[in-house]
């Protein structure tokens, strides 16, 4: 199905996403530079907002991109129930634009951090994590602002509505401060919206898409996403 991969000025993971999606049966990814505006999304069955540094991360990561015209098109697709996946900077854009609750603050270390992490997938799966209940998956992170934060009310709701998709953990699946790379509240690495059709995650599933590059755990998430664009 037609999957729009957005590129804001400064986005730099769009070719990676397209390359991986092309390897998944049924996916027909196409690049949408943000200047093309909402009309470029009319045919889309799903959207990926990839990682990078949209607008150079000026102001706040994702802040400038979140108010771009193209986001009106994204909103329409979300309202129609189509799946939208934000990875890294894409998660930041979705949080800034209010499609996902909470905010991504500067890492606790105040530094960019790139490393392989383990994620515990929630036992309550969503459209993006089907078949992965309680799984421990290995994917890399690479961000300076991935410290997920939200109010207690929102947090309670995320828990009660099963909106937490991934939490940072160790190899055995233990979730503790030691395995929290950036200071995220409750080790949260990824969440979905209430309707469960928008997911944001800081780790990069596309960077865990072949054994040769260290893991193919991430491709399972992208495969789920592609399947959902068909529904």
């Amino acid at each position, binding site marked *: 199905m037609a999957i729009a991969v957005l590129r804001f*000025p*400064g986005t*730099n*993971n769009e*070719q*990676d996403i397209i*390359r*991986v999606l092309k390897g998944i049966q049924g996916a027909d990814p196409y690049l949408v530079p943000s200047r093309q505006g909402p009309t470029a999304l009319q045919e889309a069955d799903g959207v990926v907002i990839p*990682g*990078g*540094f949209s*607008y*150079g*991360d*000026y102001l706040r990561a994702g802040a400038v991109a979140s108010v771009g015209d193209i986001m009106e098109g994204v909103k329409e697709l979300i309202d129609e129930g189509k799946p939208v996946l934000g990875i890294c900077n894409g998660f930041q854009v979705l949080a800034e634009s209010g499609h996902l609750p909470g905010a991504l603050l500067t890492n606790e270390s105040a*530094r*960019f*951090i*790139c*490393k*392989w992490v383990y994620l515990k997938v929630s036992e309550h799966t969503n459209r993006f994590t089907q078949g992965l209940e309680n799984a421990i998956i290995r994917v*890399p992170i*690479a961000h300076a602002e991935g410290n997920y934060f939200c109010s207690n009310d929102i947090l309670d709701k995320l828990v009660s509505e099963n909106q937490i998709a991934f939490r940072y953990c160790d190899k055995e699946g233990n979730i503790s401060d030691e395995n929290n790379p950036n200071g995220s509240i409750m080790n949260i690495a990824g969440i979905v919206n209430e309707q469960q059709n928008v997911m944001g995650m800081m780790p*990069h599933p*596309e*960077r865990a*898409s*072949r054994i*040769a*590059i*260290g893991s193919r755990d991430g491709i399972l998430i992208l495969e789920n996403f592609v399947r959902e664009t068909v529904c």
Partner: protein
Amino acid sequence: MLTQTELDHAAKVLGRKPNETELAMLDVLWSEHCSYKSSKRWFHLFKTKGDRVYLGIGEGAGLVDIGDGILLGVAMESHNHPSQVDPYNGAATGVGGIIRDVISQGCKAVGLMNCLHFGHPGKPKNAHLLDHVVRGISDYGNSVGIPMVGGDLSFDDSYEGNCLVNVICIGMVRPGKVVRSSAKTPGDHLVIFGSTTGRDGIAGVSFASETFSDQEEENRGAVQIGDPLAKKVLIDVLSELVEKGLLEGLQDLGGGGLTSCAGEMASNGGTGVTIEVDRVPLREVGMTPWEIIVSESQERMLGVVSPENINEVLEILAKSEAPHAVIGHVTDDHLYTVLEAGEVRARLPVDLLVEGFPVPERVEGVIPVQKQSLEWLKDHYEFDALILDMLGSLNICDRSWVYSQYDQHVQINTVVDIGENAGVLEFPFNKRIAFSSDCNSQWCLLDPQQGTANSAAECLRNIVSMGARPILLADCLNFGNPERPDSYAQYVESVRGLGRFSNDFDIPVVAGNVSLYNEAETEGKIRRVNPTPQIMLAGIFEPGYSPIRRNLCTPWANLLLVGDTLPELNGTEFQRMTTGKIEGIPPVYRPKREKSIMNAMLEAHKFGLVRSCNNLGRGGIAIALMKMVMHSDYGFKVDLDYVPGSTSRDVEVLFSETSARYIAEVTESNQQQFMQIMEKHETSAVEIGLTVNDSVADFGDFEIDMREATEVFQNGLRQYME
């Protein structure tokens, strides 16, 4: 600054005194940085040709054929002086500049490396410099979406006051898409694009060609400011221009700005150029012609475009919204002409401007002779405590504080992350290439020739231990003031060492850079950096071969020590740790042994006999074994009573840094075949122990506590930076 001899020479050739603009142009192009006037005369010692070499030294990037129509591009450069003055911007623009070198050749940039040398981080100023340099590289490299694949980091007091920041960019291109940096056809248009021109980086190259003084603050205006967002836009628009084949020639604007860029392209093409400075898009008002013509503002490119293609090029550039303009054209008069509102502001023969300098006389002094003596050795050492100290020492400890700040995975081709012996990237058609960079400046200080050759050999072992065969070499030669005979002697000897290595191993030097004047004058005293010939090697794996890591990976396998161990403790990390000094004859470069052992190891790799492997470098056998065990689920038990070679004491066995040695993990069933291969290549190999199913480091006479080892290793650098 131009010397009196140079001024006289210019006046004589011109038949008149050069004007202000011409002087500024000559000043930058005749600077050591642009002209290589002290260094170039020795480049003939390098091996530069080879079957795989598509484009050698001389343009933005060297291009090497890795088969199936794929060329690997490599460029390497220093950004030392700017990084010392303004560490964040200096380092960031170093990365920006090296990326431009590679993409201006038509390449897609696919990897970055950086090699850093600093004073002790226990001093706040040094820690501050390192912190900001790493942030500069991180912010810039991460933003433009090019993975970091490796590098080097060392600490020595000689770098205090003059840190070294060397950067490498790796690219990839198909032969049909290669763009040359030359302006061949008179009448072609010169198009500047990417960014505007301002007053930042004015005469940066001249400032980089002088010794630091206490007044370094004054030079801040000579440091350029980077803009990674503009660079990303530039990368995208350039790839479109290259893909459509619309450029006749291209060069980035780096050191020396428009003067160097257009001048070199005219020189390469055997033509002339005319630049109309009033057409250059500016970001500041009131800039004079000479400021415009020498500005080193970042993120700019100069393209040579034929009249047929000019409209299409301008359309593409307009769509990208990047600043751009046609600023001149190629001529047949062999002159570099600068016009402002139609008036000639400068007119210099290209031959004079580019390489027309009077070759300066340089005197090669004498390198002090070192002694072989090991009299400084004590009778007794506490080996366990010593090994723990070494694991935490700055030149051995964990570097993840640095590299975890770099994006290593973007572009999804990274097979081996930083932290192993070499980083590995995957190229099309399952080609895998290993990249490693090394320089042991302590060895080079004691014996620049041997030290350089042996640093290169160490780098080679990094590549070979993973199973790859070296195919190319790039270098960045960082030395002191060439006008001082003792400093110049270090440079010349080092080039001889690199020349020897490249010829001995038949590895072509395809890219490089020389950075001289790396000295700081503080309180009237000159402090010169250790001779630092930073070497980078790339190696190719057999198709489908999975790179071998250094972590022990099977229990109950045998550990084999390959190569002879000699009592070589002078110039080593052990000597520095225990005496606080570096003296004596450093470990000797042994090309014949190194080569036969390389071939033996590569054959063993080829037959899949090696499970894990480490080469022996800083800290000798003791540290090599520790690095194999610290991140492994398994451990080792070894007995070092019999080690081939000529050592007579345990301390020599453990810490000697003799070259041409590896430790390989080989399972029992493969050992016979492994030994046969070693024998065939006349290489000594001996079983020194085995791997076990617990996390232990058992040296026979003593054991190292793993928890303690990991902790000191991880905190070695971190303790100063957090």
